[in-house]
């Protein structure tokens, strides 16, 4: 979501270069007063003028800017991802230079130039330590422009929530349970994958695009998908007991790996957790449902 950059408190920090410059200006100024030398007054005036201009430009540099952060669709805890960072300069004349956006110490992006009435996009590394719904958090936006004397900027809290899946962990071993009776979940028709052609049915959300029967589109005027018999690989219903591990997080991590692997291989996979039960199935949407259930399970399930 795009939002204007408005800081509760604008912080101005003097950089080392700035401190050196101020010290030099004071020194020359004192020398000018002491010696009554007008040329030193001229040098002092020049130094003061540059400092004042620097302050004015730094003030303008952070005005009328919008910030938008877009995270990738899949975020995993403890894994670095790249969020898209878009800054819009709404000023009509003044470009913005050297805008730094920082989330954590090592999560930093810099915009060297944002022309007037333009938006510029870059990426910023993001990292979440916990699964579940997480806030994007606090972003520090600063600019040293123009001379690097002042570090001017502020913090902006982005309260947009993102869903962070558990960190995929290597699977030590697996105890798979069979498909329970009277189950009609998974793929909408209960059909499998990899076997013989069975027939066609109407497209439903979550069906893999590879199974869309395009020729049927011209005949029926709607999307249909091809159905196949199961290939023989049994559907996988995962529970917390399916994988070993001393802690819940470790088990969830292994389950995420299994879901991702099964989905990639085309094996129907489901979840049977104490709070949620999802029958085996395939497709991206189903996979996301499973990952969401794992992300929100237990402590991480604060919605």
């Amino acid at each position: 979501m795009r939002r204007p950059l408005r800081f509760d408190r604008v912080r101005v920090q003097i950089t080392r270069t700035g401190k050196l410059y101020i010290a030099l200006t004071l020194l020359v100024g004192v020398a000018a007063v002491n010696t009554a030398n007008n040329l030193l007054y001229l040098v002092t005036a020049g130094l003061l003028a540059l400092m004042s201009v620097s302050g004015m430009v730094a003030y303008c540099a952070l005005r009328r800017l919008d910030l938008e952060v877009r995270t990738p669709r899949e975020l995993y805890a403890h894994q670095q991802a790249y969020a898209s960072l878009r800054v819009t300069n709404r000023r009509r004349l003044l470009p913005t230079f050297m805008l730094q956006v920082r989330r954590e110490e090592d999560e930093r992006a810099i915009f060297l130039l944002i022309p007037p009435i333009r938006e510029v996009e870059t990426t910023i590394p993001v990292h979440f330590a916990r699964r579940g719904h997480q806030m994007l958090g606090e972003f520090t936006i600063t600019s040293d422009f123009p001379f690097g004397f002042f570090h001017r900027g502020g913090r902006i809290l982005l309260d947009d929530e993102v869903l962070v899946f558990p960190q995929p962990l290597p699977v030590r071993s697996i105890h798979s349970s069979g498909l329970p009776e009277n189950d009609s979940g998974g793929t909408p028709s209960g059909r499998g994958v990899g076997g013989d052609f069975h027939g066609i049915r109407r497209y439903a959300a979550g069906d893999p695009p590879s199974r869309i029967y395009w020729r049927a589109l011209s005949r029926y005027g709607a999307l249909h998908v091809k159905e196949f018999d199961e290939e023989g690989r049994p559907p996988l219903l995962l529970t917390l007991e399916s994988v070993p591990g001393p802690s819940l997080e470790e088990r969830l991590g292994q389950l995420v790996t299994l879901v991702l692997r099964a989905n990639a291989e085309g094996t129907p996979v489901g979840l049977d957790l104490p709070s949620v039960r999802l029958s085996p199935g395939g497709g991206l949407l189903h996979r996301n449902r499973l990952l969401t259930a794992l992300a929100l399970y237990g402590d991480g399930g604060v919605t």
Partner: protein
Amino acid sequence: MKRDVTEGVKVKGDRTRRPDRVTLVLTYAMACLGLAAALLHLSLLLGGLLAAFITLGAAWDLRGRHPLSTWMINLFSVMGVIALAALPSAHGFLGRLLAASVVLLGAKLLGPKASRDHLQVMLLSLLLLIGSAILTVDLTFGVLFAAYLPLATATLLWIPFGRELEGRTLPRGLVRRLGGVALVLLAAAIPLTTLFYFGLPRATAPLWHGIAPSPALASGFSDRVSLGDVGRIALRTDPVFRAVLLEGKGPLPAAPYWRGLVFEDTDGVSWRATEPPVSTLLAGSGSGETVRHLVYLEPQGDHTLFALDHPLAASPTSLTLRFSGGAVLKAARPPATRFRYEVESDITGWVPEVLGPEARARNLFVPPGLPPAVHRLASDVVGPARRPQEKVERLRAHFHTGYTYTTQAPVGSDHPLEAFLTARAGYCEYFAAATAMALRLSGVPARLVGGYVGGEFNDQGNYYLVRQRSAHVWVEAYIDGRGWMRVDPTPPAGSPAGGTSPASSFSRFVDSLRLRWYALTIGYDMRSQVAALRSLSETIRNTFAFSLEWENGGRLLGLAVLLAAVPLLVSLTRKARQHPLERLYAQLLRRLSRRRIVRGHKEGPLDFARRASRARPEGASSIMEISRAYAAWRYGGRTYGEERLRELSRNLRRV
């Protein structure tokens, strides 16, 4: 939408787009400026050394190889600074400090450079510039400072970018845009510099003189003048002072006499300057013609100040200058740099002072051992006259008719005065000394006055430029009841009093610029500041005191209209040059940006139109239509008639 410019790629071979090249260009420009500043006040040897550092550093930076390791450079710096501290310097401590800056600057240039080093180069160049500000008030400093300000702006602006872009290619257009920003910053910095320069509070006098070195003796005068000294400096052309005539007074009708020193004590061969107590003026005096003038004195290395004929009043007094006996002005301490003072002088040629008995005795003293020729001069030439003024006139006439001015020292006798009177040729000192002795022998108190005569009048600045070659010595004879009378026995032909050839109009113009610079830099003090503030407050009061007469109000209104018209005119001119479709599309972009729909950097007009249409479906057809027309004109060269443009314009209103 394109990715941000920070996503630059690693440099492979494209040297022209390397950001470090820009940094290096700026750094070496700074170093060259430091070199120019160093040449203003340091020896040619040090200047040459710095030039060598610059050349070597640039060559090594271009090759990307620095043969000297860091420890070697550090060792070189330490040894250089120690050596320079041990060597004598013409400018004392400050000179050594500046010489050390040259060595450190060289060391910075010879090694590999990080962004910190570029800043240090800039700082050291500034130090050299400050050094030239302390040691010289020359116009060249103004030129260097005018170059330093934009260069410093560009360097300070660029260094953070150079640091950020290290190892990447230079994004296209960045340097151009930053150049534009530098120009804007500079345009804002120049009026602020002027404001700060005139607004920063001034001290009445220097509080500390420690840093300024004592100037070397440059004047042709000292407190002891032996016969022949003035002759040696008669050919020197370096300026001594410039005197601006105030109140619109033009060139003076006769060659002006610039008084500096009074010599009363003599042994017959040399004369010693004395500082008798300040005398009171004779009753009824002071009705003569006076001239106010501002003197810009070059540093002379002594306390002597020069002023027209008989200085009556001078400023600034107390801390910086004072009146001394013999109607001369003295500086409180030898000025280390150019020094300005204002004097009001009586130019009638008389100093109407009371002569006390002690002073009379001193000015009638005749040293023993004077050659007979001087006694003969007194008896033969002056003898017959009875009144002091007549005696003076006879002597003057004697020397003006029978003697010639020459720059060769007279020879032929052990005593210089006898040689002079025999050869009937000599310098002004000989004429003056012989006249004073003859007058004293005839009972008229007399003394020598040292100073300058004439000078080159510059009509472009209404001032006299007085050079060393105008040095002169003349006589003052005391006439009871009227005071000291100026007597110049030196024949005018060939002497400084005879005038100097006028300078070319170009050199007069350059010199008048120099004087303006001095007026701005030396002349601006606390008094000027207070006067300027008073004048400003007066102007503001007059402008807003309403009574605001129609005339003032009209003027104010006119000024406001003019100020408002400038950006309007610029905008109109720019718009007039735009194609109507370009203008229309710009309006569309502005309207959409107000609704937070902003065209992306390098996003095509049709892509943007589709995105904007999705965001504002109610205006989609208009957005698409205008964008298509713009793209067809911009990229396809398609033209549109008036009617179509009007239609598109109507569409814009629906967005």
